């Protein structure tokens, strides 16, 4: 199967610090890929490079067969991005935020646009009373859900999540994981997420990409955690990882 995202020989450095040193990564159609790595290993830079927000020093990135460069037209209709703190436009209400991409990329009537936006907001798990609120009036978790609704507004093929559960309490984080899994199973989505949350990694992700030494170690979770690389070994042998895995086994979930 054709990968939906292909990153090859990516090199990014800031001054003397080499963040990516010939990084290769392929994201397959329909999978949920979790990107993990210590701080400073360039998770965000990788995401920003894929989205065309950061120009890498060298290397090639293709998304849905299109090369990311100065002009990658039409991709914005096929991907949705949930930024870490939502990045909702503060001058617009929740509903207007979700309507914005719809208005930009279609000519549907205002009534349908509004209804479709409301539908996506409901899908993201928010109540109707949030439609006309401004982002500043929402809690962090609600803002993330509203931003998720915006990311889903155009029926994207690929959904990017930047630390979706960061800053949420454990209950809200679990709910968000369930929402992600639900969306993945009910919409035809490929999901790429940066996460620090082992819980998310174990429950939602099909494969993981661990960024170490400027490269990515990619594979199913079970495979990657067997890696002998010291950082990967330490990351997955953390007591918390064992605890979560144990819980997962008891819950009888297969991932």
């Amino acid at each position, binding site marked *: 199967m054709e990968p939906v995202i292909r990153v090859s020989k990516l090199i990014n450095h800031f001054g003397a610090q080499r963040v990516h040193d010939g990084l290769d990564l392929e994201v397959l159609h329909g999978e949920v890929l979790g990107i993990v790595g210590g701080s400073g290993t360039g998770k965000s830079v990788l995401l920003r490079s894929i989205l065309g927000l950061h120009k890498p020093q060298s290397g090639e990135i293709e998304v849905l067969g299109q090369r990311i460069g100065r002009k990658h037209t039409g991709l914005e*209709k096929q991907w949705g991005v949930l930024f870490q703190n939502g*990045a909702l436009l503060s001058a617009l209400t929740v509903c207007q935020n979700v309507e914005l*991409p719809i208005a930009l990329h279609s000519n*549907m009537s205002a009534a349908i646009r509004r209804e479709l936006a409301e539908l996506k907001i409901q899908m993201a798990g928010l109540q109707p009373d949030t439609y006309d609120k401004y982002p500043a009036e929402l*809690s*962090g978790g609600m803002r993330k859900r509203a931003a998720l609704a915006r990311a889903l507004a155009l*029926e994207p093929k690929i959904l990017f999540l930047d630390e979706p559960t960061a800053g*949420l309490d454990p209950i809200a984080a679990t709910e968000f994981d369930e929402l992600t899994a639900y969306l993945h199973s*009910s919409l035809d989505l490929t999901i790429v997420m940066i996460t620090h949350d082992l819980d998310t990694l174990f429950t939602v992700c099909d494969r993981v990409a661990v960024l170490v030494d400027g490269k990515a170690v990619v594979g199913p979770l079970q495979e990657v955690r067997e890696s002998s690389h010291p950082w990967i070994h330490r990351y997955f042998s953390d007591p918390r990882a064992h605890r979560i895995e144990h819980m997962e086994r008891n819950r009888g979930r297969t991932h």
Partner: protein
Amino acid sequence: MAWYSLTVRHSGRTPLQSSRNAWSGAADGVHVSPYFEYQRESDTLIISLKDDWTFGNAKELDDALRTVQGNGARQITFQCGGLQKIDLAGAWVLFRKSQEFEAEGRDTQFLGFKAAHFKFLQNITDIRDSAVAVQSAEPVVLTEPGRLNQILEAVGRTATAGIEDVGRIAHAILSGITHPSRLALDETIRQIEHTGARAVPIVMLIAFFMGIILAYQGANQLAEFGAEILVADLVTVSMLREMGVLLAGIMAAGRSGSAFAASIGVMKLNEEIDALRVMGLNPNHVLIAPRVVALVISLPLLAVLGMMAGMVGGLTVSVLALDISAVQYVERTVASASIQDFLVGLVKAPVFALLIAGVGTLRGIQVSGSAEQLGRLTTTAVVQAVFLVILADAIFTVVFSRLGI
């Protein structure tokens, strides 16, 4: 492939009651449109869907469905076996129509959904039912105290980076003006309100006071020559040539220069600029150019109002304190005011506006990383804008006097 049929009963949320009654077309004929066919069989209206029901053609689907009317049919059947693709947007348009039929008291039925398609329609019904259940607990944010403050301030920009940014602003303005859009237009109008309309009272007030100051100071000097009446000339000429536009410019630098830097800086910190980019919007077109254009439009208008308010200030002092009658003052004003002086003043306004808006948006864009930097760059924007306005005014004055204008 599994096949499903389901009957959807709605609780008539918003009855989109239709009073249309003409059954257009032959009673039992087949009506064809690109996305569906429909025909009447006794009291059942059968709508057979085909092709793609997706986001991309939602508008066409809706327009086409609008032409379909129940007209007497008791039962509406949506025959979905012929669908190629359907997504949430397409399903919504369909669901909406079925709701409309339900509100008119007809039964609607969906037949022949393929498993994959069925999922989407089920999604909609699911969501409408479970909206309350999903949102069970109010998410609480664990804030990371002082995280922003801990981030070290970014290394100061080098001179070359500064020049690059000036080039970026120039490019932003030019490309923004050449790529007008509905969104950019809305933002421009909003900014004209913020930078122009809302600044009117304060600009007129300070210009009025400046008129009072000029008249008093002038009168003291002119009284020595017994030429107090020339106060009117003094106020008029200085207001038209210098003070009106300068006061408006300084006020705009304080109000709008800082607002531009702060608003764009916050959007940068909040990743809103990145969000715009990934949605296919160019921040240059929708944020920077509208602000620059708005100020270029509103500053000349503010300058004209300032000139007038200043002259009224002079009149007030003359009448109340200098024994000059209003008629005399107005006569002198009319005699001394010239179109040339007015234009000399007015021509500076767009230049001031470009400087203020340029430096404001530039400092906003330079914000990266920390809230402290945002505050610092906002201050920088105001200081530099005021400095540039006065510097430019000095250059104008020298050039105009050399040219003898």
